[in-house]
């Protein structure tokens, strides 16, 4: 039960400052000023960049204006269907006090690397898919299937409109424990490492064999291999203490798609 409202609130209100820049090759005429924007960590890039797109459209050549928009950071194209916070934590250098500089592109969409999820409908379907996946892991899909279409809409609208109460009115139900247990059946979690966008999903149970709630130390032990050892987890831009319980984490620190996106720090043995 996600009842620690304070934490929920802090997670929800996490924001990043992004500095959008135009592709110099695409600019026609005057060089546009970089566009700064505060975006929510939990949102997705296509949802928040309408304004940016409008701003930069004026400065680029006519033929590119209708092209698919994509972003890149230091040459790395950014996955449009990842939450921004995830992208930021993966790519952004740690000790930099300036906003995250991203370049917006209107042309040459890298078909091989990115999936063209640049419309809201596509994103919504992806989001719901994630939601269902997470619920299957947590509740065997019972909760999500019990919800009506309007609940799904409410979740999505709450997310894109930044409505905490609207979102969590429904999301609470997804955070209920499974049946009579005190936790989910499994923890929906995705592990990232090596600054790569590929993630690993493993079936993680919130309870250990003894029935106690697992914490990150346990998780570390699970993920460690003889070759490399997990030493720390990061999410939402913070290093998590080892004692943090997994169940609590899944309830409170999941992204809107109900997944925990953890960056694992490995140390090679």
């Amino acid at each position, binding site marked *: 039960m996600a009842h620690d409202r304070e934490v929920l609130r802090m997670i929800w209100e996490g924001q990043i400052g992004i500095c959008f820049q135009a592709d110099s090759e695409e600019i026609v005429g005057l060089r546009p000023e970089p566009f700064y924007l*505060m975006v929510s960590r939990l949102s997705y890039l296509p949802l928040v960049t309408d304004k940016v797109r409008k*701003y930069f459209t004026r400065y680029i050549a006519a033929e590119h204006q209708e092209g698919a928009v994509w972003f890149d950071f230091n040459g790395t194209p950014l996955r449009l269907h990842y939450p921004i916070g995830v992208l930021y934590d993966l790519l952004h250098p740690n000790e930099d006090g300036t906003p995250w500089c991203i370049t917006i592109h209107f042309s040459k969409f890298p078909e091989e690397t990115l999936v063209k999820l640049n419309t809201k409908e596509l994103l919504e379907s992806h989001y719901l898919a994630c939601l269902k996946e997470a619920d299957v892991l947590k509740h065997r899909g019972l909760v999500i299937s019990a919800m009506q279409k309007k609940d799904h809409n409410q979740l999505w609208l709450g997310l894109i409109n930044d409505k905490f109460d609207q979102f969590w009115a429904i999301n609470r139900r997804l955070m209920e424990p499974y049946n009579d247990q005190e936790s989910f059946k499994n923890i929906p979690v995705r592990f990232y490492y090596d600054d790569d966008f590929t993630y690993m999903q493993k079936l993680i149970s919130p309870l250990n064999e003894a029935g106690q709630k697992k914490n990150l130390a346990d998780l570390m032990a699970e993920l460690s291999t003889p070759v490399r050892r997990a030493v720390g987890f990061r999410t939402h831009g913070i290093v998590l203490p080892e004692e943090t319980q997994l169940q609590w984490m899944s309830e409170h620190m999941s992204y809107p798609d109900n997944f925990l996106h953890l960056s694992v720090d490995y140390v090679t043995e």
Partner: protein
Amino acid sequence: MSAEECLWREHVVQRLRERDRKECENFKEIIVQNNRLIDHVAQLKSDNLKLSVENEQLRNAVSTGGTGPNVAIATLEKKLLAQQEELTDLHKRKGEHSQMIVDLNLKVEQQKELLSEKEHSLYDQQTANNRLRAEVQLLHSSLEELKKLNTTLLDEHTALQLAFSSLEEKLRKVQDENRYLLERLMRYRAKDADKLNEENESLIRKRLPSLFRKRSAKLKRDLEDAVRESNSAVNPIVPAPSGTPLHRNSSPAQFGGPAGSDDEIDEASINGAMEALAMNDDEYISARFMGGEAVHDGVRPNINTSIDTLKAAGYLGQPNPTKIFMKFEAHENESHAVRWSPVERMVATGGADRKVKLWDVGKGSTEPRAVLSGSSAGINSVDFDSTGAYILGTSNDYGARVWTVMDNRLRLAWLGLGLDLGPCLSDYLPNAILLLPLAL
């Protein structure tokens, strides 16, 4: 939650806060401002674009000679010009008006001055008027006083007039008395003179009896002739001169004496007698000469013979007439004046009966040729003018009158001469009348 959980939860929260501080709070405000500025800039850019587009359009329209705007501009310019002209006109008029105002102000000032002057003069006039009124009042009062004085004076005058008239009456009475007394005196004197004459004659007789006899004889003859002639036509003469024949008789007798001395004496005596009597006794003189004149008129046609007869009668050639030629009653009352006419043998007499009567002596009639009336009191003196056409008579009624001889009509009358023209000689001078009052 257990305490342990709280611990790591706190850790988590703290780290989240740390993260927020680092990532979010530093940039939030700035980025928000930036976004706002960018929006503003975008807006301005769009406006700018619009304006430039419009500008371009206008320029295009102007450059390509858009008639609509051009015509509008031309009309506007014309209007502007007209407005400016009007403005200058109005300015001019304003200047003129202000000038007029200045002039009018000056005029008003002048008028005010005139008005004040008029007021001053009016005030002066009023004061003068008041003064004059006061003077008029004073004059009225003085006039009243004078009128009163005048009335009192008139009253005094009438009173004095009355007194005067009464005094006049008294004077007349006294004069009459005086005359009477003079007559008596004359008589006595005549008597004395006769006595003296007798004495003289007696003396002469003694000395020159021959001369005396001739003389006395001549005298006697003359007297007799005179008596004869006078008896035929003689009116009873007023008793007063009754003594005169005697005198006349005696006087020729006087001439019988020594010529020079007797004449002188006689003349002296007669002159003395005349002087003594002449002032108050016209009738004596006229009576004396009347007789002589009567004689003259009677013998006019035959002058020489008459003269001879007169001489014979003892009238001519003698200084004093001794014979009465004619005697007639001229007036009912006293005769005061007698005069010969210079041209005719006519005598004019004036008397106390207020009439002047003309007598033809030549014809020797006893009736007057004419009776001239018109006087309201006794005639004192009469005179002819040199042509004998007019008669002037003065009377006791303070008046003088002139009658014409031809038609016996009163021509002129001067009344109120202020003098009681008592016995006075009136004489016609060539151009004037001389009135010599012989009385008071």
